[in-house]
C-alpha cells in the first residue's frame, strides 16, 4: 500500500462503542479534530481514553461506530492501516524493543526500507537524521533502548512516530514519567509541531491541558460528558466535570510527630535486574507516626529500594535498621515477622495471587500462623470469618469472599491488599504507588486509611509519582534521583516546583 502523504485536515470519530467483558469501555463516543488543532482528552483512569485511542490506531476493533478521515470513512484492521493513513501514537508505556538499537526499532515500522532479503538501514538512518533536524529532536540511532533514560526513550518514540510518516499525533499521557521541567520542554515542542500536525493528547494533568490544547473533551465511564473550547473554561470547571463530583482528598494536617526512628536506612546499595546500582548509597530515615513521601521520576531506584527493604532483593552494601535491628538481606519472612507491612507496586501479580479466592489472599502472609492453622491444618472457619469481616470493613465490592481475587476491579484488589496489610497490625508500612490507576473514590478511601494509621503512630514510607498525593499526605518529602536522596523538604515549605527541580537532579542550592 502506497502511503497517502496528504495532510489530514479533519479526523472525526462517530458513535464509537467498545465493550470488554463486564465493562463498557466506550459508549457512543463522538469527537472531531480539525487541521492544526490540539484536542485534550481528559478523564479519570478507566474512563476509556486509552481504549478510544487504541481503536483509532487499529489495535482494537470497535463494536459500533466509524472513523472518518478528511470526511471519508476509514476502517483500520491493524496498526499498519492507521500508520498508512497518517496516524501515529506514542503510547503511555513506550512501545520500544529494549534489546534492539534505536535504528532497529525505527526500521521495524519503516517498511519502505524493507526488501525481502535485505534491510536498508542506511535509508532508515537518513530518515532519522531528516526528522531529527526538522524538529530539533536529537537521538543516537546506535544506542540500545535499554541504555536510554525515560525522557530519551520518549524522544525516540516521537522520532519513530514521525519517521513512520505520522501527520496526526496521538499522545497517551506523554508527561506521566517526566519531571515538571521536561514536561515544559515537551509542551513547547508540541506547540511548534502544531504548525504541521494535529494532535490528540490524553492527560489528567489540568495544567498541561490549559497550556497546550485548543479543545477539550472529557470522558467519564466511557461517555463524553463535556466538549468545548479550552480557553472558555477554568481548570476548576474541568476538574469538577472530570470526576463528576466534588471530591476533596484528605490532607495530612496533623501536628508533626516526634517519634523515634522506625526505619533508618544507611548507605544502601542495591542492584537492578540489569545489574547496575539502582540504589546507590541511599540514606533515609522515617519516624514512627510519620509519613515520608518519596518523590521521583519512576525508574530512579524506587522499586529496588522497596524490594530491598522487604527482603525481596539482595542488598549490596549498607544497613536497613528497623527499630534498631538491621534487616538488610533478611528473608521476606523475617521482615514480615519484624512487623513490616508492604503495599507493592504490582498489585495484580505481586500483591495478590490472582487465581486464589479473596479469602485465600487474606492469609497470604499468615497461612502458618496459629490464628489460621493448627498443627499445619487450616482453620477454614476462622479464614471465612476473617474474610467476611475484612470485606465489610474495607467495603470491598464483590458478591462473596470466594471470588477469584484477579477478577476484581483494580480498586477492589488494592482494598484487598490494604485490608490484609493493615489488619496484620504492622509496625511500619511501605506503600508503593498505592493509588495508581484508581478512581478518586478508591484513592480517597486509601488515603484516609493511611492517615488513620499515621495517627495511630505507625511510620509510613509512601513512594509515589503523583506529586499531589505526596504533598497531601506527607510530613516530610524526600526526593530520589539516580538511587540517592537528592534532597528532603519539609511539608510546610515544599511545593511542586521545588520538588520538580529536585526530581530533575538539581540540588536546591544549585538552583536559580
Amino acid at each position, binding site marked *: 500500500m502506497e502511503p497517502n502523504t496528504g495532510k489530514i485536515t479533519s479526523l472525526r470519530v462517530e458513535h464509537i462503542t467498545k465493550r470488554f467483558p463486564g465493562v463498557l469501555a466506550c459508549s457512543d463516543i463522538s469527537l472531531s479534530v480539525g487541521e492544526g488543532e490540539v484536542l485534550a482528552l481528559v478523564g479519570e483512569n478507566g474512563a476509556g481514553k486509552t481504549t478510544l485511542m487504541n481503536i483509532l490506531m487499529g489495535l482494537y476493533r470497535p463494536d459500533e461506530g466509524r472513523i472518518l478521515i478528511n470526511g471519508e470513512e476509514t476502517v483500520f484492521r*491493524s496498526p499498519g*492501516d492507521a500508520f498508512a493513513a497518517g496516524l501515529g501514537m506514542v503510547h503511555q508505556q513506550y512501545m520500544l524493543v529494549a534489546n534492539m538499537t534505536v535504528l532497529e526499532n525505527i526500521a*521495524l515500522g519503516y517498511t519502505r526500507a524493507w526488501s525481502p532479503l535485505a534491510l536498508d538501514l542506511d535509508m532508515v538512518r537518513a530518515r532519522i537524521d531528516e526528522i531529527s533536524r526538522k524538529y530539533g529532536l536529537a537521538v543516537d540511532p546506535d544506542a540500545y533502548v535499554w541504555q536510554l533514560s525515560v525522557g530519551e526513550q520518549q524522544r525516540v518514540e516521537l522520532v519513530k512516530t514521525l519517521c513512520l510518516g505520522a501527520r496526526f499525533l496521538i499522545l497517551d499521557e506523554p508527561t506521566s514519567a517526566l519531571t515538571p521541567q521536561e514536561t515544559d520542554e515537551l509542551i513547547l515542542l508540541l506547540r511548534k509541531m502544531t504548525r504541521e500536525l494535529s494532535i490528540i493528547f490524553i492527560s489528567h494533568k489540568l495544567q498541561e491541558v490549559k497550556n497546550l490544547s485548543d479543545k477539550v473533551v472529557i470522558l467519564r465511564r466511557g461517555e463524553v460528558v463535556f466538549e468545548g473550547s479550552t480557553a472558555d473554561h477554568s481548570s476548576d470547571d474541568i476538574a469538577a466535570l472530570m470526576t463528576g463530583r466534588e471530591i476533596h482528598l484528605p490532607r495530612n494536617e496533623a501536628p508533626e510527630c516526634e517519634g523515634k526512628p522506625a526505619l533508618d536506612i544507611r548507605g544502601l546499595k542495591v542492584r537492578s535486574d540489569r545489574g547496575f546500582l539502582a540504589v546507590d548509597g541511599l540514606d533515609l530515615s522515617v519516624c514512627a507516626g510519620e509519613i515520608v513521601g518519596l518523590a521521583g521520576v519512576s525508574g530512579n531506584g524506587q522499586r529496588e529500594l522497596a524490594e530491598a527493604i522487604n527482603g525481596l532483593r539482595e542488598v549490596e552494601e549498607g544497613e536497613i535498621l528497623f527499630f534498631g535491628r538491621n534487616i538488610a538481606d533478611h528473608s521476606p519472612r523475617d521482615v514480615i515477622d519484624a512487623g513490616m507491612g508492604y503495599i507493592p507496586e504490582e498489585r495484580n501479580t505481586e500483591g495478590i495471587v490472582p487465581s486464589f479466592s479473596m479469602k485465600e489472599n487474606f492469609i497470604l502472609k499468615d497461612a502458618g500462623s496459629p490464628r489460621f492453622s493448627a498443627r499445619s491444618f487450616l482453620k477454614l472457619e476462622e479464614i471465612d470469618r476473617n474474610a467476611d469481616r475484612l470485606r465489610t470493613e474495607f467495603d470491598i465490592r464483590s458478591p462473596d469472599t470466594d471470588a477469584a481475587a484477579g477478577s476484581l476491579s483494580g480498586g477492589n484488589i488494592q482494598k484487598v491488599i490494604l485490608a490484609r496489610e493493615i489488619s496484620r497490625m504492622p509496625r511500619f508500612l511501605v506503600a508503593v504507588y498505592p493509588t495508581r490507576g484508581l478512581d478518586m473514590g478508591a484513592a480517597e478511601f486509601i488515603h484516609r486509611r493511611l492517615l488513620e494509621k499515621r495517627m495511630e503512630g505507625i511510620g509510613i514510607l509512601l513512594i509515589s509519582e503523583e506529586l499531589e498525593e505526596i504533598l497531601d499526605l506527607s510530613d516530610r518529602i524526600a526526593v530520589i534521583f539516580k538511587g540517592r536522596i537528592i534532597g528532603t523538604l519539609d511539608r510546610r515549605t515544599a511545593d511542586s516546583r521545588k520538588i520538580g527541580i529536585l526530581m530533575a537532579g538539581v540540588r536546591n542550592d544549585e538552583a536559580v
Partner: protein
Amino acid sequence: MDFTVNILALGIPFSVALLLASLGEMFNQRAGVFNLGCEGIMAMGAFLGMLVPYGAGHGAPVPGTFNVLGLLLAMAVGALLGLLFGLAVVTFRAPQGIAGIGLQMFGVGTAGTLFRHFVGGTQSVPGIDRLPIPVLSDIPFIGPVLFSHNPLVYLTFLLVPAAWYILFRTPWGLRVRASGANPRAADSVGIRVNLVRFQALAVGGALAGLAGAYLSLCQVKMFSDEIIAGRGFIAVALVYFGHWRPLKITGGALLFSFAQALQLAIQGQGIDFPYEFAVMLPYALVIVVLAFSRESLLLGPTALGKPFNREMRT
C-alpha cells in the same frame, strides 16, 4: 594425530542433526515460542525421510531424487507440525511447555504407528552417500575433517551464516526478534505478531523435520523408535546455551558431538567402562551445561513463552 582426525571427522557429521534442530528452535524462540515438541517433529522427519527411498526401492539403491524427495517430505510435514503447534499455543494460547510434550508424544507415536504399518520391522536404506569435495578432501588433516562428508553436512554449515544473516539483517528477522522481545511494540507498528510466530514455527518445524531425516538417511540409515534419543530436547537446551545466537549454538552443537565422538573412540579402544554409563554422558552433560548457562532473557526473547493477546489489558 590419527586419533584426533578420527574424532573430528566423526564429530562433525554427528553435529548436523543437533545443529539443524537447534537453528530451527532458535527461530521459534526468537519469535517467542518455546517448542519442546522438536523431538516429535524430528521423529516424524526421520520416518518420512526414509519412507520415500524405502518405498521406492525396498532397501535396494534408488536414484538420488528419492532421497531428496524424502528430505522435502520430512521438511513439509515438519512445517505442518510446527503450524499445528502454533494452533495450540499461538491461536489458543495454551501453555507452551506442556503443549510441547503433547506434540512430542504425538510425533513419536505417529512415526511409530506409521512405521509399523508401512515398513514393518527394522529395514535399512542405502541413504545418502558421502561426497568428498575433489582436491580439498585430499589436503591432509583438513581434508578428512572438513571436506569428506555427505552433502547435507556442507549445506548445514552454510546454513549457520545464513541463519545469522536472516535473523539480524533482514526485515523478517527483525520482525521475528521484535515479536519475541516485545510483541506489543511490534504490534503497535503494524507487525502481525501471531503471523510471524506461525512463520517461525513453520521454519523451525521444517528444520527439525530435516534434522530427523538426516538421522535416518545419512547417520543411521534406518528408522527405529529410539532413533532421536533425546536429540530434540538437547537441541532445545543448546538454544539456551547459545543465547539464541547462531554461532554460539553451533559451538554448543560441536561440543556435544565431539564429546560423543570421543566417547565412541574411547570405547573402540577397548577400555572397560560400562556401556550404559557412556551413553548417559551426553544427557548428563546437558544438565551440567544448563546449570552453568543462566538464561539471560534480557539479551534474547524477553517474551519467550508468553502468548500474545492484544486485548489483554495490563
